């Protein structure tokens, strides 16, 4: 595979290949696009988290409902997510080494871990809903809490689910040879990014709202 085919992940092979200046960051266009998307998404998450902090500071009677049981659950979720990040990194390394079966197997483990995280998260959501938390009211304090909680964690969850769907499609495609190592690395990048975001969500949403 020529360099330029590598750059676009092997698509459009056999077409006229122009002579190009090297990229200043030596990243192929697809990976660059993923980095750019992540930069954009960082701004989106930053806006959400800053908005959350702003609201929390400026609103009286902010509830602090989370018991230690929730925190333990969140820590387990975090552990699962971190493990999945490590496994994903191993999958990318295997893919770079050209070991398709190993890379596929590892990305499937990532997928399962991600699903487990999602299930635990949804379970926690149902727990909150069961306690009477809605987008505009809750039993403890300002009604804004529910809106803020569901928005921020919902954003995270939405990203996780989207990433899992993409991971499934790309892993299957990678296994069948439709996608390349670069594609797998791209979705891996996105997965790591989501994990980092979670590292900001946990203290802001959970630790700071610990009961007692």
């Amino acid at each position, binding site marked *: 595979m020529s360099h330029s085919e590598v750059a676009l992940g092997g698509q459009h092979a056999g077409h006229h290949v122009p002579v190009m200046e090297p990229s200043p960051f030596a990243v192929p266009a697809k990976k660059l696009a993923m980095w750019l998307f992540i930069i954009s998404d960082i701004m989106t998450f930053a*806006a959400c988290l800053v908005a959350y902090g702003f609201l929390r500071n400026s609103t009286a009677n902010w509830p602090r409902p989370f018991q230690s049981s929730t925190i333990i659950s969140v820590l387990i979720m975090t552990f699962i997510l971190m493990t999945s990040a490590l496994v994903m990194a191993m999958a990318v390394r295997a893919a770079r080494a050209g070991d398709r079966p190993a890379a596929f197997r590892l990305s499937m483990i990532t997928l399962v871990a991600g699903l487990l995280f999602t299930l635990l998260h949804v379970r926690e959501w149902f727990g909150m809903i069961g306690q009477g938390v809605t987008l*505009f009211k809750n039993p403890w304090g300002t009604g804004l809490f529910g*809106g803020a909680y569901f928005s921020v964690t919902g954003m995270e969850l939405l990203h996780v689910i989207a990433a899992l769907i993409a991971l499934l499609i790309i892993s299957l495609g990678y296994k069948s040879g439709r996608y390349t190592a670069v594609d797998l690395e791209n979705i891996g990048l996105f997965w790591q990014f989501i994990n980092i975001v979670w590292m900001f969500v946990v203290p802001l949403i959970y630790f700071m709202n610990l009961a007692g």
Partner: protein
Amino acid sequence: MHETAAPAVVHGPPTTFLSKHVFSLDHKVIGLQYYTLALVAVVTGMVLSWLMRIHLGWSSAAIPGLQVLSPNGAPGGVMTPEYYLQLMTMHATIMVFFVLTTAPFAAFGNYFLPIQVGAEDMPFPHFNMMSFWTTFTAFLILVAAFFVPDGPPLSGWTAYAPLSAIGKNAGPGEGTGQVLWAAALGVFCIGQLLGSLNFISTVLDMRTKGMTLARLPVTCWAWFITSCMGLTAFAVLMPATILLILDHVAGTSFFIASGLVLNDQLVPHSGGSTLLWQHLFWFFGHPEVYIAIVPGMGIVTHVLVTNMRRPMLSMKAILYSMWALAFLSYMVYGHHMFVSGMNPFSSLVFSFPTLMITIPSTVVVLIWIGSLYGSKLRINTASLFALGFISMFVSGGVSGFFLAQPSIDIMLHATYFVVGHFHMVMGVAAMFGIFSGTYFWFPKMTGHMMNETIGKIHFWLTFVGTYCIFMPFHYLGWAGNVRRYAAFTDDFLKPLIPVHQFITVAAIFTGAVQLLFIYNLIYSRFRGPAAPANPWEGTSLEWAMPSPPPWNNFGGHDPIVYHDADQYGVKTASGADYIMQNSPEQALGTAEGD
């Protein structure tokens, strides 16, 4: 595995009508689609401004047909104060998003960025196509607000909360209209994200052999810088619009404070912050101003260099200044909020970078003027509009020095002074950039020359007309004329009504003059004389291909670049005073020995 940039060609020639003209992957077609969208949007926005202006000059005058558009908003053709605000909101939203962002950045950028870097297309043509259709969808959603029962929102393009957040009880259009408005902007953000992704990766990864970053034409840098802003600024607007929609449809209260009383009734929401909306909006909103103007700066520099026949005094200083503008644009947003009730100390903090941002702006202007001084500028419509851009940018920018200071801004903030300021510095200036780019690149885009005589008449009438409209705004502001009022019935404002009437006449006149431009566009497109490949004797790569370019730009032959785009005023063996970027020829010296 070694990874290089070098992406390959990304699509073949179009085969069907749909793939050629509608769902085209070709960046040139997409650029023209954006341009057409901007043209439709600017006519819509201009008609809205006419309606508002007529009402401001003659508040009891019936505008025939307006009652058809909105029976409630304009009973008998006379608009209600609320309907005035609804038109104002739509005028501003359409102009800012679908004209000032769309035309200089998305339209010209799509068309010329890949060509100028020597690529066959952008790396992600499908994203590019989606980007246009997303933007088009956003436009439809926005315009749909005219046709829902209560009409479009009345909260202004800034949609300040709580007015924008508490729903239909806040006023006409604050229900469905406001939700449509927010949805349109949210969708628009997606289009911008896709566009910015493509622009940035085109510049970094798609440059042809020899096109080092240092050799990029200034327009590429302008679009690149704008993309960096677009990538990050719209990403903040999007969640803001989502939260606003949630406040409407899901009962949340992100932007609605506790204890709000409306029509003697307590609003059932509790807990949010009205100021949060302003923070989120202006964090996007101020970079947006530079998203509108920086491409214009690039186009103007490009047009001037070509017509001066000599390089700028310092192209590097222009580039660094544009970067500085982009960087500082994120630090100054609070200057829109001096009177918001924000901590006065914050005002001070935001005032400093606001004054600082005048430095790169001034550097760019001084380099333009210094470079023009003593040059034998070729006077054509494109260069006239470039000069007009400088004039507008300076005239509108100077009032920025006043407004940057909180103590003065408190007096002027809610007056026409601010309206005059931003219309000149980002509205008309950016429009002049669009005009300049159009007259300059039309031959390349269509293969036909535009009529220069009509073009020059268009320029002079527009130039005088826009000054007649927007200069008196400053005077109105000093006289204490408040903005966002539909009519002036207070005693101290009554003497100003003749000024408003003058402005209205000027606005209708200037708007009518644009028919010349539209006529010139359409007539020249079909009947204009055939354009040569390089009508302006330019150096950049768009002039190294036929007019109009074939679907794959360079016909499958990759250009190799040997120079930067500033090789003007040089001695060459062929006698020309310029060397094209893809010509291996070396200069024998400067043309005039200077």
